[in-house]
C-alpha cells in the first residue's frame, strides 16, 4: 500500500470513526479489515507449511515403497472416503454462502448455513472415527501395534499407515478447531454482532474452513485413490 492509499483511507475515516469495532490504532475500518485478512492469509500459509512436512514424508516413502503404497491405499475404504470428501466440499459451499448471506444482511439464513456447516464437520468426524476404528481392529496402527495380516511381509506397509494416521489425524484436529471457530462465529451471529458492514469474523472463519477442506482435497487422492 503506498502512501497515497493511506491518505485516501484517512479521508474516509470521519464516517467510520464512531464504529465500535474500530481499534484505536487503525485510521479506518478498511485498513483494519485489510490487516485482518492479511493476517489470516499469513496464518493459512503457516498451516500449509505445517502439513508440508507430512506431504514430504508421504512423497519420500512413496518413492521408497511404490508398490506397497499402492496396495495399502486400496485397503482403505474408498466409499467412506468419498462420502467424507462430498461432506467436506458441501460444507465449504455452505460456509461460503453463509458469508454471502451475512453480507446481504440475511442473518437468519446465514445462521442456518453455518449450522449446516458445523453438522457436516461433525458428520465428517463420525465417519472418520468409524474408519479409524475399523483400521485399529485390522491392526493397521503403526509401530509396535502393527499386525496387519493382509499386508504382512510387505516392506513399508508400516510407513503408509504412519503417514495415513499422522496426516489424517492432524487434519481431524484441524476439523475440530475449525468447528470450534465456526461455533464461536455462529454464537456471535445469533447474538447479532454482525451487520452488512461488519462481518470480518465470518469471512475469516470461512477462510479457515476452506483451508481445512483444501488439505483434505489433497489428502484424499494421495491416500485413497492412487
Amino acid at each position, binding site marked *: 500500500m503506498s502512501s497515497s492509499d493511506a491518505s485516501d483511507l484517512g479521508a474516509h475515516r470521519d464516517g467510520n470513526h464512531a464504529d465500535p469495532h474500530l481499534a484505536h490504532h487503525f485510521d479506518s475500518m478498511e485498513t483494519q479489515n485489510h490487516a485482518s485478512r492479511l493476517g489470516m492469509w499469513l496464518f493459512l500459509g503457516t498451516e500449509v507449511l505445517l502439513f508440508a512436512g*507430512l506431504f514430504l514424508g508421504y512423497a519420500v516413502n512413496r518413492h521408497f515403497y511404490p508398490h506397497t503404497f499402492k496396495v495399502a491405499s486400496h485397503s482403505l475404504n474408498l466409499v467412506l472416503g468419498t462420502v467424507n470428501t462430498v461432506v467436506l466440499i458441501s460444507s465449504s459451499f455452505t460456509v461460503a454462502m453463509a458469508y454471502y448471506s451475512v453480507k446481504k444482511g440475511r442473518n437468519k439464513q446465514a445462521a442456518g448455513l453455518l449450522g449446516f456447516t458445523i453438522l457436516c464437520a461433525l458428520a465428517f468426524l463420525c465417519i472418520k472415527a468409524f474408519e479409524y476404528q475399523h483400521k485399529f481392529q485390522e491392526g493397521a496402527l503403526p509401530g509396535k501395534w502393527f499386525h496387519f495380516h493382509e499386508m504382512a511381509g510387505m516392506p*513399508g506397509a508400516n*510407513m503408509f499407515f504412519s503417514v495415513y494416521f499422522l496426516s489424517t489425524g492432524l487434519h481431524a484436529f484441524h476439523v475440530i478447531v475449525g468447528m470450534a471457530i465456526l461455533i464461536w462465529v455462529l454464537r456471535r451471529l445469533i447474538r447479532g454482532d454482525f451487520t452488512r458492514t461488519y462481518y470480518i469474523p465470518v469471512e475469516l472463519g470461512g477462510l479457515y474452513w476452506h483451508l481445512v477442506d483444501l488439505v483434505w482435497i489433497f489428502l484424499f487422492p494421495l491416500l485413497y485413490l492412487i
Partner: protein
Amino acid sequence: MSQHADSSALAPAEARVYQEINYLNADRGVMSWLKTLDHKRIGIMYFASVLATFLLGGIFAMIVRFELTTPEPTLISANTYNRMFTLHGMVMVFLFMIPAIPGVFGNFVLPLMLGAKDVAFPRLNLLSLYVYWTGAALVLWGVINGGADTGWTFYVPYSTTTPMTLFPVLFGVFIIGFSSILTGLNFIVTVHTLRAPGITWMKMPLFVWAIYATSIIQVLATPVIGLTTLLVGIEKVGGFGLFDPGRGGDPVLMQHLFWFYSHPAVYIMVLPAMGVMSEIIAAYARKNIFGYKMIAYSSLGIAFVGFFAWGHHMFVSGQSAFDDGAFAVISMLVGVFTAIKVFNWVGTLYRGAIYVSGPFIYACGFLFFIVFGGMTGIAVATVSLDVHWHDTYFVVAHFHFIMVGAVIMAFLAAIHYWFPKMFGRMYHEGWSMVAATFIVLGFNATFIPQFLLGNAGMPRRYYMYPERFTALNVASTAGSTLLAFGFIIILIYLIWALKHGEIAGPNPWNSKGYEWRTSSPPIKENFEHTLDYPEEPHMYQEPGEEVEHVVI
C-alpha cells in the same frame, strides 16, 4: 536542520526533558502490566524474560567451559555434562536468541519507527508473550525434571532412545514456535497496514526492513519445526517408526525437516542484528546510510536463499554428492548478500564524523565477527573441507562467531542505543565502553582457540579430550570469564542508570531515526499527534553537504 525542526513536534535535543507521564507509569500495578496491550510494555516484558534466559543459558555455558578446563572429569559427571550442553543450546536458541531482538526491540521500536500507535494485533501480541512464557516454562521444567541429553538438535535415534523423558521439552519447543509465528505475523501485517502517511516502503528505517525479512522466515519456517518436534515426540511415545530404519522409516528425513527450520532460524537471529547495525552505524557515523536499497533488498535476499541452504548441515549424513554440491553453492550465496551489507556499512563509516561510544564499539566488534564468522561459514559450506571439520569445535567456533559475535554484539548495541528511549535515562558512557572492550576481547579469547581446537580435531560435545588440547581449552575458558565479567559490569551500570542515570531527553544521540521523534520515555499513545515524514530515516546531510561532528 531548520527544516527538520519545523516538521518535528519535539523540543530541541538540548532540552533534556524527562516525560513525567509515560508508558511505564500511565497505568499502575502488576495487573496493568500482565493485561497490557501496549507494544512498548510487551517489549519490556520480553526484555526481562530474555535477560533471565540469557543468564540461565550463560550459567550453563560457564559450567560446560569449566568442565572442559581439564582433559579428565573436573566438576560434573558425563551425564550431567550432556545435559548441560543440551540446556545451554536449547535455552540460548529457543528461549533467548529467537525472541531476543524481534521480541524486545521489534516490539518496542518497530511501531515507533513506522509512526504507528501499536502493532496491528495488540491482543495477539500479548498472547504471543504468554505462549512464549508457557513454552519456556515447559522447556525448563522438562530439562530440569526429566532432563534432555540429546543436544539442542534432538536428532533421532538419540532422542527416541534416550531413557530421559524428552516429551515436555519437545512440547515446549513446539509451543514456543507459535509465539514466534504470531510475532512474525503481527510485524508483517503492521508493516503493511500501519505505516504513517509519508512513510513509503523506500522510506522505512532499515531495522524495519530487517524485521520484515525475519518475520517472513518466522512465519514460513517455524511450522516445520513444530511438526518435527511433534513427530519426534510421537516417535518417542508411540514409536510409529517414521524415523526408525528398523520399521522402514528414514532418520535422515528427520534431519531434513529439522534443518528446514533450524537453518533459516539462524537468519531469524542474525537479520534483526543486521538491522540494528544499519541503524547504529549511520547514527554514530553521522552520515547518510550508504546503499539503502541494497541493504534493504539483501535482507530479503538472505531470507529467500536461507530457505534453500539447509542441506549443508548434512554433508556427512548420506546425501547424494549432487545435493551436497547444490546446497554448498546456495549456502555461499548467503555470503554474497552478507558481503553487500558489510561493504555498505563500511561505506557508511568511510569519512563519517564518528562518535565513539558503547554501541559504536559493539558495531566495530560486530563488523569483525560477521566477516570472520561469515568467511568461516563459506569454508564449512565447502563440502571437502566440511568433511574434515564436521562436528568439531571448528563448527562450534564458527556458529558462535555468528550467534554470539554478531547477534549478541547487536543485542548489546541495541540495548545501549535504545536504552535512553526506553527508560528516559542515560547510563555511564565510560563504563559502557569498558564493558564493551571486555566483551569484544573476551569473545575473541573464548572462540579463536576453539577454531584451532576444531582444526586440530577436537570433536564437539565430548566430555573428555586428549592431553594436547588442554592449553587451548584453558585459554577458551579464561576468555569466557572475561566475557562473563563484561556482562556483569553492564548489568550493574544499567540497573543503576534506571533510577539514577542522567535525564536523556527525546533524542540524546541526535539520531535521525523516526523512533527518536517522541518523548523519552514515550507516552502511552507513542506520539502526541500524527507527524510528517519529509526526510528519509538515515538522512544526516543533503547531497554534497559536509558531515558534521556533534557533541553529545
